[in-house]
């Protein structure tokens, strides 16, 4: 596990931080276009089903939260632009 993965795990493991992240992710999933779907593992999701998983904080919901956090951290750190 690299440092970035460890930080994401720490945030997800902290109930207060996870609750804040959950609220943020729900807002971000809410703007997902209806004309888009995602396949994660053996399941396919539209916006409504993703929202339900995030609200439930189940395995899929937690994966979505981790993914959003990873992307946001990449944007904030500039990592998304650093790979030219």
């Amino acid at each position, binding site marked *: 596990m690299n440092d970035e993965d460890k930080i994401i795990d720490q945030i997800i493991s902290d109930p207060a931080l996870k609750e804040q992240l959950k609220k943020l992710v729900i807002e971000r999933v809410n703007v997902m276009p209806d004309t*888009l*779907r*995602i396949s*994660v593992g053996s399941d*396919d999701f539209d916006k409504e089903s993703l929202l339900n998983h995030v609200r439930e904080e189940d395995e899929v919901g937690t994966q979505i939260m981790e*993914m959003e956090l990873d*992307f946001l951290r990449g944007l904030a750190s500039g990592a998304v632009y650093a790979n030219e």
Partner: protein
Amino acid sequence: MPTNRALLVTRPNHDLITQYFHKWSEEVLHAAEKKNIKVYDLKGKKAVKSELESYALTQKPSLFFLNGHGNAYVIMGHDNEPIVNASSSLGEGIIYARSCDAGQALGALLIKNGAKTFIGYKRKFICGYSPDKITKPELDPIARIFLEPSNLVVLILIKGHTSQDAHNRSKEAMYKNFRKMISSAASYEERYAARWMWGNLNNQVLIGNPKSKI
């Protein structure tokens, strides 16, 4: 145990995303045939453990392209039956698994069992798609963004380059697509799906010998 310059592909098609992988793998099969590389195509119901092990043992292909669902210890075939697990021996070939999580543990175990190189994903392999294109996966512009860079792993290998080259070129293509997706020229769908591409980009791993070739 030397290998033969051949490509073995498993591509089940029992659900939506395996249908996408099944269809998008055709580009790789055609490219291999053009290069006069023998292709063993375990598609649909033929994507089962007994068939895979039989071909691995008798034909000793130098390259395995495994499509299907997976987890840290197993890659699935038709109907999500395990096709590769920790005890599988696929000879001394190079393995690329378009499958979730297998880069966490299974990849290293397959190297221990004799494979030269494993390329796969340490977390979920994400694929975005357009619901209005599910009957024509090959025309899905969103899926294309995710699956073309993935195909590139195998396309570069069959051109005779090293595993490291294939891994790098695939990641470069993912990054190129990612940058387009976060640009003002992208569609709303592409911009939203960029976060998923970022995940694939960071989760693709190479384990084993980076200098291996088919």
